[in-house]
């Protein structure tokens, strides 16, 4: 009894100490460091802190004080949400036992097991979880690099980029042209560019009905293609010109100074342009040396990297098999990883991995569609078990219910990430 009481008090003191002085060493508790406070990282931090009940020191390194979700950022562009409604703070995580350090991780020393910070200093770890999202492949779109992101925004990391893109679309002259350069596979949120096209069309239909939308796409087909095309024909007839691989959509260059887009040799003057380049794992995953090519290969049972059993990669940066790069997937992977990491550090029970994903997309107000699947861990990869997709020609009430469900999902997942 005495023993228990004393160790209980000990834990509380230690937890308080960690909160106020993040880099204090030697509390004796196992340490988990998480880089990136997005769909994967915030979820992992919350679950490990919650489920270990103070038994693990959890540090989350994330430069931004507000996380703008990419999910529903297209609805902001369409005018269905305001920007504040997709912004989330780390306050609740911090009061629930997660050490939130607002800084960039700039290096990982896997031999010494430390992460170095842009603001100086290092943070030691027993287990390191990286969930840094995506970065862009240099030179992927001829004529574009990140220095051109103000003239031609990517808006594929949400926040100021998203606001900029919307402002540029709103400023288009009547009858003007919006162009999108779509990315090659694999990329975050397979239906994301096409939901965006839908929301841009929705916005233009109300404000600039004679405007045109051109999409240059290096792929011959895309996620939920027939559903989107059916919806575009129904709601935005004649407005959207999708140029796929077969028509030279992959042979594209841009000139941000002149505001032109050249598709298969044909130059078009545009008024707003959204360039979404090819993607790769977040830079820090490359610096940590756990990537192979563009992505970080992981073991499907616990998301540990093939390169280092003490370094885990979640979400978009990971190369895991069949799951699409989505917020839902990252959240699902984070929970499997949290359970495994906790087990490895404290001996708590480790349950078998189960993964799932559903991606909702909005084509027009109250016209929602979805695609989803469940997955299991196999020795080779995370493998798809079963799935479904919305059907063409569904009734308006089904589509409306699907949209309402996505609103519920948004509330659910953001609460699951940030508490």
């Amino acid at each position: 009894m005495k023993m228990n009481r004393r160790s209980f008090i000990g834990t509380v003191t230690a937890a308080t100490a960690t909160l106020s002085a993040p880099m204090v060493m030697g509390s004796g508790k196992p340490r988990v460091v998480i880089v990136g406070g997005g769909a994967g990282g915030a979820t992992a931090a919350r679950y490990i802190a919650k489920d270990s009940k103070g038994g693990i020191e959890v540090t989350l390194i994330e430069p931004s004080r507000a996380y703008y979700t990419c999910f529903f950022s297209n609805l902001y562009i369409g005018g269905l949400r305001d920007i504040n409604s997709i912004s989330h703070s780390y306050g609740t995580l911090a009061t629930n036992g997660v050490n939130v350090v607002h800084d960039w991780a700039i290096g990982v020393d896997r031999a010494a097991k430390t992460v170095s910070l842009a603001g100086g200093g290092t943070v030691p770890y027993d287990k390191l979880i990286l969930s840094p999202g995506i970065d862009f492949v240099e030179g992927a779109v001829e004529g574009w690099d990140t220095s051109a992101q103000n003239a031609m925004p990517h808006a594929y990391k949400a926040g100021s980029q998203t606001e900029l893109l919307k402002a540029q679309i709103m400023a288009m002259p009547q009858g003007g042209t919006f162009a999108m350069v779509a990315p090659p596979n694999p990329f975050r949120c397979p239906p994301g560019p096409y939901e965006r096209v839908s929301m841009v069309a929705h916005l233009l239909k109300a404000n600039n009905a004679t405007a045109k939308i051109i999409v240059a796409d290096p792929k011959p087909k895309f996620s939920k293609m027939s559903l989107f095309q059916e919806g575009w024909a129904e709601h935005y007839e004649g407005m959207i010109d999708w140029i796929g691989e077969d028509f030279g959509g992959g042979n594209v260059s841009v000139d941000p100074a002149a505001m032109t887009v050249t598709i298969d040799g044909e130059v078009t003057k545009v008024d707003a342009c959204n360039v979404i380049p090819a993607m790769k794992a977040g830079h820090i995953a490359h610096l940590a040396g756990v990537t192979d090519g563009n992505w970080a290969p992981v073991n499907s049972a616990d998301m540990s990297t093939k390169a280092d059993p003490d370094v885990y990669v979640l979400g978009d940066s990971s190369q895991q098999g069949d799951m699409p790069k989505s917020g839902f997937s990252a959240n699902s992977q984070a929970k499997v990883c949290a359970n495994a990491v906790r087990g490895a550090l404290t001996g708590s029970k480790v349950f078998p991995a189960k993964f799932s994903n559903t991606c909702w997309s909005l084509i027009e107000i109250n016209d929602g569609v979805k695609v989803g699947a469940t997955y299991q861990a196999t020795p080779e990869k995370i493998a798809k078990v079963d799935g479904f997709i919305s059907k063409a020609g569904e009734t308006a009430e089904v589509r409306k219910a699907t949209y309402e469900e996505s609103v519920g999902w948004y509330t659910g997942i953001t609460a699951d990430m940030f508490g």
Partner: protein
Amino acid sequence: MIFRMFLPITFASTIAASVVFGEGLGDAGKGTKIFSKCKSCHRIGNGAINRVGPHLNGIFGRKAGTIVGFAYSKSMVRAGVDGLVWTAETLDAYLENPKSLVSKTRMNFRGLKNPQARADLLAFLRGYSDEPINIPEAEPTATKTDLKIDPAILTIKGDPEYGEYLSGECKTCHQSGGEDDGIPAITKWPEEDFAIAMHAYKQKLRQHPVMQMMAGRLSDEEIAALAAYFKDHE
């Protein structure tokens, strides 16, 4: 007139909590009396109008929640949109435990636990439906069956710790605080109702595609674990 029918065996054998049907045939005559339990809210027959509940003429083959002018619960409308059609099977499930088939139904009725009473009542209701569909008629060679149903599935003791882990998958969409916002709340359900609802998705009796997929790969133990966890979840 006595109307004879067979109980929906596939459904009953896996989902219903009941144990053994000695008699598989419904008797519409007896059903008339049982309908007195419904009468305070429902009318049936010539000129029946909506009261507390919608009128029940033509209920077989009707999509749930679709009588024009009746103010259904959101849950019932949603169930109809998701594809719930009233058949012998689905009516049997709804009357046994309304909330396990349609989570937040406004129908304030505890359920008819006796399978024979439900069979009799269904036989009675069917007499007021023009196009009764989906009712297995009695095979001439199978007038009487002793059906053994394994109640074991519903008596499995769930491991709440495993349930807590598995619940991570649910909480991506269902808010753990129990709010109901586009997606129904699933906390604090009686364990058995929860398990029955999940088995109904697994058997594709409840219609929602995401839930059919999620439940489809849960084992009986896993469903029990989730039920045990969510029962007490704050």
